[in-house]
Structures are given as structure tokens and as C-alpha cells.
């Protein structure tokens, strides 16, 4: 590739043609401030805080969208550039609410950090403060247009990474806001509530609906028996909130923290991930033996489920009827568990710790009441749990390693890998292979479905059957696979879809990070959990085996259908008002 030589702050640098000034400056150790820029997703040069001086240019140039040119001389820290950036930042701050101390993004806000970095000590302009209503229509995400700086990062993620387009710029000029078409509440739009907009937002304009107060109240109530489940992806990410690197495996500390917060039992969603494999694997075999419908899609990811309901309702019968592990857990925690423990199911409160905002919505779906109660009472994101741990004054990093409680805390490596893209597929293959062939699977790692590539494929020979599988993560990637299925260009049997890029490790409820390799590291953490567990196949989980013996009797049996399977709803891609028209 052609190279370009230029000078940045007196240092000569050679970079490939097409490189932006922002990227080139990094090579000489200069970090130009940015705000609307999001690597690989949003580069529109709208916030103007990355302005630099280019010798010979008539105006200052935005570094994030200006390509380098041969012989260019760039000054990233000239008085003119610095003044312009400060001025633009002051203008952005001129109508921004002064609510840092009570903002959910306090200390994780990029605008706040930038104001500090650029030494803003005074905002010379006072614009009228906007006064829009909060949109707390959904149980998942809150929109606060008053704090929005119109950077459009959420818009870009929603459109490009997820292919949903639920939030867009509305109106213009001072009246511009970002939100769903017709200014409708998020809950009424064709939004999947995945929360990728939340993790893209630099400020506090989009954040998770907080249920920590409800959980504190349940914990303080002596009449409630409060049990908690932790999703697989939480244990490799929560450490980031306490200064540990992404991917650090903190399972034992997580359990210890939850116990110290006062949960009566600390259980694991990985247990019901194993159970999901038994039910979903049996369902796949049933479909293979009884003529379909195939391909079968996985059903663990509530964002994917809502997406399919809005955008591809014609595929509903292709989705596994299995509830997600979170909901299987909820249904058992209010039936099987109290029966075993000899407690009143009405006294049980179920809390989930999830890397996900869509899980909050899933828990409140009307279908999720098969125990006779709302199966899962409260869903906290990884971030909310981290806040509770901080509030309680626990020093997370120095907590001892503790074990989950029996019986819903026992799990295998197969359950663990649900937390990353490809994991459900790999776990399913480990079990389906052994059920069908009655032989031990030679080598457990299904490498073709691992990694961060958007769409992955594999062919697995099971006895005399050749199973064709596909894995996609991020809904724009999912859509590619779905379109190929609809156009009969693919003959897969089984397809795993995870709504968020990377799978749950990259979920909308995870710690917010701008580290490039965070997803990769969290994924490595997940596979480490798998490697380190003594049992790595779901059907070998002794607690799951006992559950079938004592309670469920058989996969896809009567009790399973009642508690562990569900139905889906036809929705409109144009929002709920178009559903009954």
C-alpha cells in the first residue's frame, strides 16, 4: 500500500495512504482529544474537539476525518488548536446540565473527563437548558435527552452494528434530539433494548434502568428469601469496575461479594445454561428426526428474540422454544428449589446479575410467569452490581474466592462458554454428539465457531449425520445469516445468534470501556473458566441429572414444557402502534 510521509509536532512519520491525522498522531505518541468519534463506528467530525492546525490550510481541521497527505505538517497542540478545542468544548457544555454528582455516568463520562483534561475551569456561555421529559418507558434503558450532546454514536451503533435504526436524529437546529421516530417512547419503537447505545454513549444521555434500590429493599426484608443468579459473562468483566484488567476471572470474588451483600443463596445461571443445552439439544434432535422446522435458531439472547419478533416474525417457528437460561433459572428457583429446600415459593425473590439490558425486559414479559409468580423479580446489569458493591464498601479485589451454593450453583465448562459468541453452539455440539453416538467426543474445543469474526460456520459429523451450523453475533451480522436462510442460499441445521457484538461479553450491561481488546480479553477469560472446570459437558452436570431424576423426569417432558419452554409474539418493524393496524 502507498505510504505518505508527514510531520506531526515536529516528528516525521510514515503511514499508509488513507490514514487519518488522528490515527497518525497516535504513532508519534500524541492522543488528540475526541468526543463524537467512536473507533470503527462513528467518524463524522461533528463535535470539533479534535481540531488540529494543518500548515497551509485555511481553517483548523478535524483530525478524526482528515486524511493525511504527503508533506503535510500538523500541529496538534498549537495555541490556535488548543483555543478552538476549548471553545468548542465550552459550547458543548453551555447547555449541558450541571448534574455530574448525581449522574449515572459520574466518573465514567467522557465529556467530564475531557473538560478535566482540557483544563476547563469556566464556561463563558450560558445557553438555555433544555427541559425534555425522561423516557423511562422501558424496563431496560432510560433516555435523558437533556444530557445528550448529539454526537450520534448511539445512532451509528444502532444502525450499523445492530441494523435496527431505533434511535435517529429528530427535528433540527436547537430542537434536535436523538430518539425513536415520531418521538415515541423507546418501549413502543422497534427497539430490541440491547443497550449497545448505552455503552456507546459518552455521557449520561442513555443508561440502564436502575433496580438497585428494589434489590436493597428485598435484601433488607427479613421475610424475603433472596436468591441470586450470575450470568457467565459477568465474572470476566466486573473486575474492570474495580481496577482489574478485562478478562480477569473473578468468579469466586463475585460469589463472595454477593454473599456479603446479603443474598440468602448465591446460584449460577451457568447451571441453567447446562439445562438449556439438554432441552435445546433434545429439541434439535427432535426437529432433525421429525422433519423440522429447520434451521433452528438459538433463543438465549433476548435482544435477538425481540429483533426476530419485530423484523422476521415469519421465522418464529424456527426459534428454539427453550427459554433463556435466566428464565429457566427463575422458573426453577420458584418451584424446584423451594420444594427441595422446604421453603414457601411465595417468599422467594429472584435477582439476576446480567451483562444485558434486554434481560430486564425479558424478565417482565408476560410469558415469564410459569412458576405462578414473575419468575425473575429483578435484573441488575454488571454495572449496577458493581455500584452495590461500592456502596457496601467492599474491596472487591481483595475478597476471598468462595463457591456457589448447591444445587443451582453447580455448572460445567459448557455452561460457562454461553457468555461468548460461539459458546452455545460449542456446548450443544459437546452434548448432542455424545447423546447421539454414545461415544466420547474426541477433543472438546470446536475451534471454527470461536473468535470475534462476525459470521462463523462449521460442519460437524455426528454418527451418520452431517450437522451444518452457523454462528453470528451483532444483529447486522445476524441479519446476513437470516437473509441467506430466507433466500434458501444456506442449508444450516442449527444457528446460534447473539444480539451483541462478541456475545454477552460485549453486552449492553457490561462495564463501559474504550479499550480495543476488552472483548478479546473477556473472551479469553470465558475459555479459561471452561478449561479450569472439572466437568466440561452439560449432560455430565450432576445437579442437572438430579433435577431430571427428582423433578423434570425427561427432556421436553410435560414439566419442561410447562416451566422451561415459551412462545413468541409477532411484532411490527414500525413499532407497536402498527401492530394492530
Amino acid at each position, binding site marked *: 500500500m502507498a505510504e505518505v510521509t508527514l510531520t506531526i509536532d515536529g516528528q516525521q512519520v510514515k503511514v499508509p495512504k488513507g490514514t487519518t491525522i488522528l490515527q497518525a498522531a497516535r504513532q508519534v505518541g500524541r492522543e488528540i482529544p475526541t468526543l463524537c468519534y467512536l473507533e470503527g463506528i462513528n467518524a463524522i467530525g461533528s463535535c470539533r474537539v479534535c481540531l488540529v492546525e494543518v500548515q497551509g490550510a485555511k481553517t483548523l481541521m478535524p483530525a478524526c476525518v482528515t486524511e493525511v497527505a504527503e508533506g503535510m505538517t500538523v500541529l496538534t497542540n498549537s495555541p490556535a488548536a488548543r483555543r478552538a478545542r476549548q471553545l468548542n468544548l465550552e459550547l458543548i457544555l453551555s447547555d449541558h446540565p450541571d448534574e455530574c454528582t448525581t449522574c449515572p455516568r459520574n466518573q465514567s463520562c467522557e465529556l467530564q473527563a475531557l473538560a478535566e483534561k482540557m483544563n476547563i475551569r469556566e464556561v463563558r456561555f450560558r445557553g438555555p437548558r433544555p427541559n425534555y421529559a425522561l423516557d423511562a418507558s422501558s424496563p431496560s434503558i432510560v433516555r435523558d435527552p437533556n444530557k445528550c450532546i448529539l454526537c450520534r454514536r448511539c445512532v451509528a451503533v444502532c444502525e450499523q452494528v445492530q441494523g435496527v*435504526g431505533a434511535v*435517529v*436524529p429528530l427535528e*433540527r437546529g436547537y430542537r434536535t434530539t436523538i430518539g*425513536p*421516530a*415520531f418521538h415515541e417512547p423507546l418501549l413502543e419503537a422497534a427497539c430490541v433494548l440491547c443497550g449497545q447505545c448505552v455503552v456507546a454513549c459518552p455521557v449520561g444521555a442513555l443508561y440502564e434502568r436502575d433496580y438497585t434500590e428494589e434489590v436493597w429493599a428485598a435484601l433488607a426484608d427479613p421475610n424475603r428469601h433472596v436468591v441470586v443468579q450470575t450470568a457467565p459473562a459477568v465474572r470476566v468483566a466486573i473486575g474492570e469496575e474495580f481496577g482489574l484488567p478485562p478478562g480477569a476471572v473473578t468468579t469466586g470474588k463475585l460469589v463472595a461479594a454477593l454473599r456479603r451483600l446479603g443474598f440468602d443463596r448465591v446460584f449460577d445461571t451457568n447451571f441453567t445454561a447446562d439445562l438449556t443445552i439438554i432441552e435445546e439439544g433434545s429439541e434439535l434432535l427432535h426437529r432433525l428426526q421429525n422433519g423440522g422446522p429447520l434451521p433452528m435458531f438459538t433463543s438465549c439472547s433476548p435482544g435477538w428474540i425481540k429483533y426476530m419478533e419485530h423484523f422476521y416474525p415469519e421465522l418464529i417457528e424456527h426459534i428454539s422454544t427453550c427459554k433463556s437460561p435466566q428464565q429457566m433459572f427463575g422458573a426453577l428457583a420458584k418451584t424446584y428449589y423451594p420444594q427441595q429446600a422446604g421453603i414457601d415459593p411465595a417468599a422467594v425473590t429472584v435477582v439476576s446479575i446480567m451483562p444485558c439490558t434486554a434481560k430486564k425486559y425479558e424478565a417482565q414479559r408476560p410469558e415469564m410467569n410459569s412458576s405462578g409468580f414473575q419468575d425473575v423479580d429483578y435484573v441488575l446489569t454488571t454495572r449496577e452490581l458493581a455500584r452495590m458493591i461500592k456502596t457496601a464498601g467492599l474491596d472487591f479485589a481483595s475478597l476471598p474466592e468462595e463457591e456457589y451454593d448447591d444445587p443451582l450453583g453447580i455448572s460445567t465448562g459448557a455452561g460457562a462458554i454461553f457468555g461468548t459468541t460461539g459458546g452455545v453452539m460449542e456446548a450443544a455440539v459437546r452434548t448432542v454428539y455424545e447423546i447421539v453416538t454414545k461415544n466420547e467426543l474426541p477433543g472438546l474445543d470446536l475451534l471454527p465457531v470461536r473468535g470475534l469474526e462476525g459470521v462463523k460456520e462449521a460442519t460437524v459429523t455426528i454418527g451418520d449425520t452431517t450437522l451444518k451450523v452457523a454462528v453470528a453475533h451483532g444483529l447486522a451480522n445476524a441479519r446476513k445469516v437470516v437473509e441467506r436462510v430466507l433466500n434458501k442460499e444456506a442449508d444450516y441445521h442449527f444457528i446460534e445468534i447473539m444480539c451483541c457484538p462478541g456475545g454477552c461479553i460485549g453486552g449492553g450491561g457490561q462495564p463501559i470501556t474504550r479499550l480495543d481488546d476488552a472483548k478479546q480479553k473477556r473472551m479469553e477469560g470465558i475459555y479459561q473458566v471452561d478449561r479450569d472446570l472439572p466437568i466440561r459437558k452439560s449432560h455430565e452436570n450432576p445437579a442437572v441429572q438430579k433435577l431430571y431424576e427428582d423433578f423434570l423426569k425427561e427432556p421436553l417432558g410435560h414439566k419442561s414444557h410447562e416451566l422451561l419452554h415459551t412462545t413468541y409474539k409477532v411484532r411490527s*418493524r*414500525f413499532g407497536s402502534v402498527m401492530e394492530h*393496524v
Partner: protein
Amino acid sequence: MSKSVGLQEEVWPELERIIQEHRGDRSALIQVLHRCQELVGYLPREVQVKIAEGLEVSLGEVYGVVSFYSLFSTKPRGKYRISVCKGTACYVRGSMEVLERLEKELGIKAGDSTDDGLFSLEVVRCLGACGLSPVMTINDNTYGLVKPDAIPQILRAYRAAGVA
């Protein structure tokens, strides 16, 4: 989806035809919006949904464009469309008083229509007749050097014609 929500049945075939010409072509969005508004008079939700469906874009993208340009309207406009100029010259020479008087006489705010469907009121930027400022137009008629006190009389004439 029922097609007749608040719209006359007979516009749908033509609407379908316009959209069909640009099926799957997101770059034709503004052009399609123009033609559909010409046909229907405004762009209600069901028309925007049809356009989103046909051009294969999200409803948000359609509504984002509709709400950006003041030329596009999501509400039915009156039989008589009153446009008051708020360009610099008209503004300086009192168009705000003209607008306020119109709002008072009609009982609506700029951007709205009267319940009887007779009048709609909107603000525009420069009609190119600054020498006659303040200026307003009612459909194709232009009124220059408008005094607020002349408003009731002007409206009376349209009311009489509109009811007849």
C-alpha cells in the same frame, strides 16, 4: 395493515406506484417524500411506513428527514395555507405581530391547522418579496405590507369562500 386510516382510499394506488418506482433505493427518499406529500397533502404515519417499507429504510430514517425539513408536514394542512415570513426584513418590520394576530384570530399555533380544516398556519424564511415586508401568503395569494389589524378582514373573505 389497513390502508384507509384517515386517508382517502383513492390515493393509495398512486402512492404505491410512486414508491414502486424507487423500490429499495434509499437515495430517492426526499424525492419520494415530495411526491407523496404533493399527492396526499401531508405525510401521515401510514404513508411514512409505506415509504420506509418500499425504500427499505427504517421508519426513523424517514421520520428524521420529514422532521428536519419544514416543507414536510405530518399533519393535514388547511384548505387555505397561510405562510408568514420570518425572514430578516419581515422580522424587523413586524412579522411577529402579524403572526401573533393570526394565531389569536385562528386559535391555533404556527404549525397547526384549525379544527374545521379551513386554515393552517406556518412560518417560512423569506418569500423573496422583502420590499413588501412584512409579507404573508395564503395559498397562491401574496399579501404585502400587512398590518395586524387587517388580519380579521382578510380571514373573513376566506371564511366566506370556504364555507360556501
